[in-house]
């Protein structure tokens, strides 16, 4: 499946010196082959993108390059010299810097403290460090004040601090892991400008992503990884996004498609003037009103951190303090506890399944009971009905194709996609009238994603009302009957998925105007 040495057309590019050369990299974990015979050449002064599906092995590969984990086989050459990286400190010495997808910053410390940590010998921890940070910030246009507490910084600024950290240590190779996942389109443009600046100064940038259109717009070379192996290295001028996607997946893409409308005119969920004060003058939720009818999927599009979590938690009763009314089938939910709301027919697929959706160290049948412990089949009066719960778990495993040897296995042992399928099956099983699905296919492999979409669509046909929160524009456009955009706690635009484009949604999500 992979070539021994990646070949790229175009003699000019082939003459530029190679800064990073990976040959035959392999890595296994118990029961999983993460990387197998990976071969990549990264040239100096270029932006090299690595694309692949969730679980394809990109992150593992980058961790190997950054010294977080050793490879089981293969070699790494940096600037012509073979290196053996046993820790991030080794990687940093070799000139490699990594900006993780989940920022590695200490909220309670200042920018200086975060940047200087581990590299105190370079410029000290006081005035010298501050001066250097200012210098780098000015040189690359990062716009960072050294003495700000990190927790006071927004997402885009935090990412720039991460980049500054890397530059402070004299990195010549900068790795970015899914950097645009949390950014808004105009912040993405700013980031790409910063990256082009880095490229001009002769640094090499490795960019991991699965957002193909972004990759095509900024990368000089693209390597596709599938199931742990390098498939092909191409130039962005030679491929389309669709072709890249097919290389990533290995077969025809499943795509969410719209079908005939199932929306009725019976209102199931009605939210009126929902507001939630925040710290300071900016409210977390600002006078939100919408209705969801039976058989309708309402998609809420927005960049993370604009009030989606607060909205969901307020509807579920997990967050107090909101004003306004929330009615379900005419009943005011205001005084009802989370349990009562669930019993009234609200199903919930949480955004963070490990924190809110599962008991990782409990067997699957107990996880089936979770959230439904007051109703059959899990409960019989005040007691838990283990037999019935187990039998029902087996049914869910069957129907929702959860890959597991049985219902007694601990939830922790399942893959992310299978955990999510179990959760979806569990929530659907109580025959809810309203389903709140927050990022339902995040971190889930393509097969499971398609399955979950199918289940939601089937339920919708049967009259289920769905509140869909997602950052995946394809998912929103494919599943929703109506799309609302949320920005800074306010609903700022209504769109018809039939004729909206990702660019329109993107601009609305950032407030750049329709």
């Amino acid at each position: 499946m992979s070539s021994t040495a990646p070949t790229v057309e175009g003699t000019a590019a082939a003459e530029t010196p190679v800064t990073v050369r990976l040959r035959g990299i392999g890595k296994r974990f118990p029961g999983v082959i993460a990387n197998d015979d990976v071969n990549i050449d990264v040239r100096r002064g270029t932006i090299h993108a690595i694309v692949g599906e969730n679980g394809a092995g990109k992150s593992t590969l980058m961790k190997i390059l950054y010294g977080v984990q050793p490879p089981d086989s293969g070699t790494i050459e940096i600037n012509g010299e073979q290196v053996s990286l046993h820790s991030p400190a080794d990687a940093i010495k070799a000139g490699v810097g990594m900006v993780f997808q989940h920022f590695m910053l200490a909220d309670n410390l200042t920018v200086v403290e975060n940047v200087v940590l581990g590299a105190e010998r370079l410029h000290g921890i006081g005035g010298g460090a501050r001066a250097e940070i200012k210098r780098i910030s000015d040189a690359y246009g990062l716009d960072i004040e050294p003495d700000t507490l990190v927790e006071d910084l927004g997402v885009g600024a935090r990412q720039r601090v991460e980049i500054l950290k890397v530059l402070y240590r004299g990195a010549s190779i900068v790795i970015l892991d899914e950097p645009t996942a949390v950014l808004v389109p105009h912040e993405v443009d700013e980031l790409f400008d910063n990256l082009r600046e880095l490229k001009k100064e002769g640094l090499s940038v490795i960019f991991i992503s699965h957002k193909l259109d972004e990759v095509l717009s900024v990368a000089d070379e693209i390597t596709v990884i599938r199931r742990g192996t390098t498939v092909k290295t191409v130039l962005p001028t030679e491929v389309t996004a669709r072709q890249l996607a097919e290389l990533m997946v290995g077969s025809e893409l499943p795509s969410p498609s719209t079908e005939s409308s199932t929306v009725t005119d019976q209102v199931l969920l009605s939210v009126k003037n929902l507001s939630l004060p925040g710290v300071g003058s900016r409210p977390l939720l600002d006078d939100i009103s919408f209705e969801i009818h039976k058989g309708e999927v309402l998609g809420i599009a927005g960049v993370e951190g604009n009030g989606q979590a607060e909205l969901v938690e307020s509807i579920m009763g997990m967050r107090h303090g909101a004003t306004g009314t929330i009615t379900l089938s005419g009943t005011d939910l205001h005084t009802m506890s989370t349990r009562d709301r669930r019993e009234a027919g609200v199903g919930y697929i949480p955004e963070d399944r490990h924190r809110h959706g599962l008991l990782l160290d409990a067997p699957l049948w107990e996880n089936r009971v979770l959230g439904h412990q007051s109703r059959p089949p899990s409960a019989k009066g005040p007691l838990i009905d283990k037999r019935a719960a187990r039998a029902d778990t087996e049914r869910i495993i069957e129907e929702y194709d959860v890959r597991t040897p049985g219902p007694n296995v601990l939830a922790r042992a399942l893959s992310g996609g299978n955990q999510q399928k179990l959760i979806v099956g569990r929530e659907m099983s109580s025959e809810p009238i309203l389903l709140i699905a927050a990022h339902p296919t995040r971190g889930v492999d393509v097969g499971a994603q398609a399955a979950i979409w199918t289940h939601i669509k089937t339920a919708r046909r049967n009259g289920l009302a769905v509140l869909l929160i997602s950052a995946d524009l394809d998912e929103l456009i494919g599943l929703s009957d109506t799309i609302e955009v949320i920005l800074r706690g306010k609903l700022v635009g209504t769109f018809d998925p039939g004729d909206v484009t990702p660019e329109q949604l993107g601009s609305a999500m950032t407030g750049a105007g329709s």
Partner: protein
Amino acid sequence: MSVPATATGVVEPAGAAPKRRLPRFWIVYAILLAVLVLSILEVVTGANDLASSGAIKATLIGTMPIMLAGLGGLWSERAGIVNIGLEGMLILGTYGAGYFGYHHGPWAGVLGAILMGMLGGLIHAIATVVFGVDHIISGVAINIIALGAVQYLASITFSGLPGGGSTQSPKVGDVQTITIGPLSDFLFDVEKKDWFFVSELAAIARSLCDELSLLVLISLLLLVLTWWILWRTAFGLRLRSCGEAPAAAESLGVKVLRYKFAAVIVSGGLAGLGGGVLALVAASNYRDGQTGGRGYIGLAAMIFGNWRPGGLLAGSGLFGYTQTLSLRQGGESIHALLLAAAVLAVGAALLQARRGNLPTAGIMGGLGVLLGVTYFLIDTVPSDFSSMTPYVITLLVLAFAAQRLRMPAADGQIYRKGSAG
């Protein structure tokens, strides 16, 4: 999960508590204010031991073990490890001081106390850092082990020695004290004048230059040293990062596990030294039950101080003062404090009411009224109750202050290498 202040999972409405930065050296103002209050109280209630030189001296000595225990807790928790075992390490320290102090002199006792405390810290470090045991369970286990071990060792090593027995060691020599002659005499004169407020200040100043135990001086220096190391050096930055964001620290090449390990051992050493102060300065031998829960009170002082040395000193001072008072004249002094507490509670209630926090204001106001009524109804507090004072104060302080504080973000987290990324 048990020590983090708020861990109930439900998101409560954001209380509009703006971040207020305390003025530099606020602790000086705090001490001045406290002395003022006590002076007024002495005049109003007639209790004469509230700010006497004897009380102040005893408070200084009594505060040190609490402060050292709290300092130990600070080192450990700043690195992300909760150390409930401070009480046990304190106990180990008292034994070390008694045993080594008797056989080889008081300074050997000091060293012995520190080493014994470090031994306790080592066990906690191995359990939590190497094996990933829950921090609280490990701490509780160490308290049990330390108590049993010390009682066992005491019965073996002290029985048959003159003045010793299975529950106490023979007398240990004193640690030297220093006296700045002329300054001390001058201050003594001012004290004798009995001037309102000024005499009390003189008494405090005098306690620091008249027969000041070297151990107390060392302890205070350690407090300042801790501040400097943790907030002004690279080592300290790295240690604090282990308690705030260990994954981030590891990704930058910080050997997180090593720092945690070191921090816990230092923590044990400091607590051990606290035990040394108890056995060598506050008393003159090791005695079973000497520690009286000071390890836990030290932890409370640390929490009260928002995990910073300045606040820790303030908290330890508060708890040490009340404990000292209850051990001296007890009834009368505590009785006087009731009045102060009542006024404080009513004042706090008014403040809360102005902020619109009516339920809290109601509770505080009710408490204030209760305390005031009690003050007027009785003349002196029974000894059983006065001995409870430090514990009641600890509870009240934690109950009313716990929510405005911020502990190190990764405190209590069980960290495994390779969690970075």
